[in-house]
């Protein structure tokens, strides 16, 4: 950007710091003028909401038509406790459900696995068999809610369970609405939950696409996620670039399978983080839509406008929450939620102020939901579409974030000799993504310790620990683990063992022959095979993954 000659008057009012930077270490200029956006062409680069390239939003009326879905992530203990929390949230006015699973379920292990000890029901709900899902959705008609599942390696099993519950309730599969996260590439890059290696993991995802576009057309079959990449310490640009590259990799994998782009692309959805630097986040969301629309139309030849639209969920940045003076987190979450709304999100989870300490209490969850309701109904920010468009700063920043993200995407493409799918696989295998993220996290930590980045209550305006607010935290009863193990044992005794063995055998055969595994997983689920048993079959066929340790 153009540097501006210092006048005598400016020298008399010096700036309070040498560099002004975002949390992602992007330098921000003193002033933005028409000069910075002189190349911007309204029709070409922004367009109208609901129109290509969707920079201003994916729907023509945006929040004037319908507000974003307020979707608080919930799940802890056994399915009974989570079912209660779901009913509480629906009663409080929440419009979509979002399910958090415990670590063993996420990693495809049953509650009685030795590695599961101490983790059952702790970070989310424990699910082993369809019996648990029957309890989880007791009294919740699936044709009336949309449910999101934060699940990755065991996504095919959980997706099959949801279909099975719908079948039990007599709900037409075509009416099922919701999302499975089902994004394994970002697992290898950042969140680190896996069962089988990257390549067979992507094959399983494409199995879900192939099955889901016909069976559950209203269900989002993947939520391509930057959230965890950011939580692992990436910058905003890295989050955007790596997530979109993952998205393009899935598109290429599905095309290789022989699926038609316009058949599956409308069922892809995204999930981003919203961190503290308000304008940078807004620019990131706007740039995301523009890059995706252009890539789908120009690179992959999609014709259906539904394929060009990047729809996304946002969660405020868990990593920005502080253990010190925890009530301050309410204000951070408010600003981050505001960025998501100004950036045109389709759904939003606001973190609770106590989450740097433990899982949130009911009171903290209510405040987080109220934060969204105040933004929606009191602030007026949702009353006009993309209100910051045309701001010299926001447009310049949108361009800048887009440019830097595209640089990364091109680098990944070169790594794969023209294939983004191959580039992402190699990036994972060579530790490229992991190194970039760890480097950014370390740089940020150094800036915090040197005071270049301020965290109120942590490196500035601190108070002695003993004076700090004590907040009540939610405790998981260790009884949950015992109860889950017992229920699993009972299910194993009561189910038809031959049906289970037959279903698992057929799944293994299908996986070996590279047939679509989804119908076989659904059969196994309906026979009450467990998450662990089903994932074990896939591990037997494809092997287990272990990441090389690198610092």
């Amino acid at each position: 950007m153009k540097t501006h000659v210092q006048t005598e008057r400016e020298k008399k009012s010096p700036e309070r710091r040498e560099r002004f930077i975002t949390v992602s270490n992007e330098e921000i200029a003193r002033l933005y003028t028409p000069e910075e956006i002189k190349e911007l062409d309204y029709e070409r680069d922004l367009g109208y909401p609901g129109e290509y390239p969707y920079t201003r939003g994916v729907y023509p009326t945006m929040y004037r038509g319908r507000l974003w879905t307020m979707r608080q992530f919930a799940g802890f203990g056994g399915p009974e406790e989570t079912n209660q929390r779901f009913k509480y949230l629906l009663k409080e006015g929440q419009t979509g459900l979002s399910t958090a699973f415990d670590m063993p379920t996420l990693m495809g292990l049953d509650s009685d696995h030795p590695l599961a000890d101490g983790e059952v029901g702790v970070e989310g709900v424990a699910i082993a068999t369809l019996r648990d899902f029957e309890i989880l959705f007791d009294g919740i008609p699936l044709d009336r809610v949309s449910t999101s599942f934060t699940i990755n390696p065991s996504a095919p099993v959980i997706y099959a369970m949801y279909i099975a519950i719908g079948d039990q309730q007599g709900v037409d599969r075509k009416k099922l609405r919701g999302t499975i996260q089902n994004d394994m590439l970002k697992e290898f890059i950042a969140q680190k939950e896996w069962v089988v290696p990257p390549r067979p993991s992507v094959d399983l995802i494409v199995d879900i696409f192939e099955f889901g576009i016909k069976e559950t057309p209203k269900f989002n079959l993947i939520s391509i996620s930057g959230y965890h990449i950011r939580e692992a310490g990436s910058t905003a640009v890295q989050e955007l670039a790596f997530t979109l590259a993952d998205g393009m990799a899935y598109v290429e994998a599905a095309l290789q399978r022989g699926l038609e782009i316009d058949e599956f692309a409308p069922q892809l959805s995204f999930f981003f983080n919203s961190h503290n630097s308000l304008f940078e986040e807004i620019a990131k969301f706007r740039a995301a839509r523009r890059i995706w629309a252009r890539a789908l139309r120009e690179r992959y030849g999609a014709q259906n406008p539904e394929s060009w639209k990047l729809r996304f969920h946002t969660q405020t940045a868990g990593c920005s929450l502080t253990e010190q003076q925890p009530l301050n987190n309410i204000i951070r979450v408010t600003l981050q939620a505001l960025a998501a709304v100004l950036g045109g999100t389709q759904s939003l989870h606001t973190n609770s102020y106590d989450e740097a300490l433990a899982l949130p209490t009911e009171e903290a969850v209510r405040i987080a939901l109220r934060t969204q309701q105040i933004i929606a109904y009191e602030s007026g920010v949702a009353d006009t579409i993309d209100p910051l468009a045309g701001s010299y700063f926001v447009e310049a920043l949108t361009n800048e974030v887009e440019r830097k993200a595209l640089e990364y995407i091109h680098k990944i493409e070169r790594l794969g000799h023209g294939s983004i799918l191959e580039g992402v696989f190699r990036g994972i295998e060579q530790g490229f993504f992991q190194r970039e993220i760890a480097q950014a996290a370390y740089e940020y930590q150094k800036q915090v310790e040197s005071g270049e980045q301020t965290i109120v209550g942590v490196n500035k305006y601190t108070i002695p620990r003993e004076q700090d607010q004590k907040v009540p935290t939610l405790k998981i009863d260790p009884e949950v683990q015992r109860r889950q193990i017992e229920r699993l044992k009972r299910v194993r005794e009561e189910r038809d063992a031959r049906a289970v063995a037959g279903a698992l055998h057929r799944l293994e055969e299908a996986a070996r022959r590279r047939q679509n595994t989804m119908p076989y997983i659904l059969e196994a689920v309906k026979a009450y095979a467990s998450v662990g048993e089903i994932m074990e079959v896939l591990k037997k066929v494809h092997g287990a993954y272990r990441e090389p340790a690198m610092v």
Partner: protein
Amino acid sequence: MDRPIRVLMAKAGLDGHDRGVKVVARALRDAGMEVIYTGLHNTPEQVVKAALQEDVDVIGLSILSGAHLAIFKKAMNSMKQSGMTDVLLLGGGIIPDEDKPILEQMGVKGLFGPGASTQEIVEFIRREVQKLRSAVL
């Protein structure tokens, strides 16, 4: 001159949050310590075995999944069985205040939550290792 402080940075259990452990590992390395990182998804027993093989002064165990009580207990037992009385066990991650005394009672020497500075961790390790080494002499 003292030999450099050797540290095993470890993740145990199913928890995949490795941002903090990697940041601390790099900071300790920049502070002149020798750092070994176990990678993810180890059992507490595997961590202790690695610490024994690598002959470290310090084990830094990171847990953000809420399974800290179960995992530290197993790690501590395993250290006792291996006779590792001269090795410092430190914890990092999300550990609620009410669990801290329980872990300290088990013998976990220092606990560092979100917001702890790496400088603070470096100084703590230097001081405690100094104490251990002079006690041995």
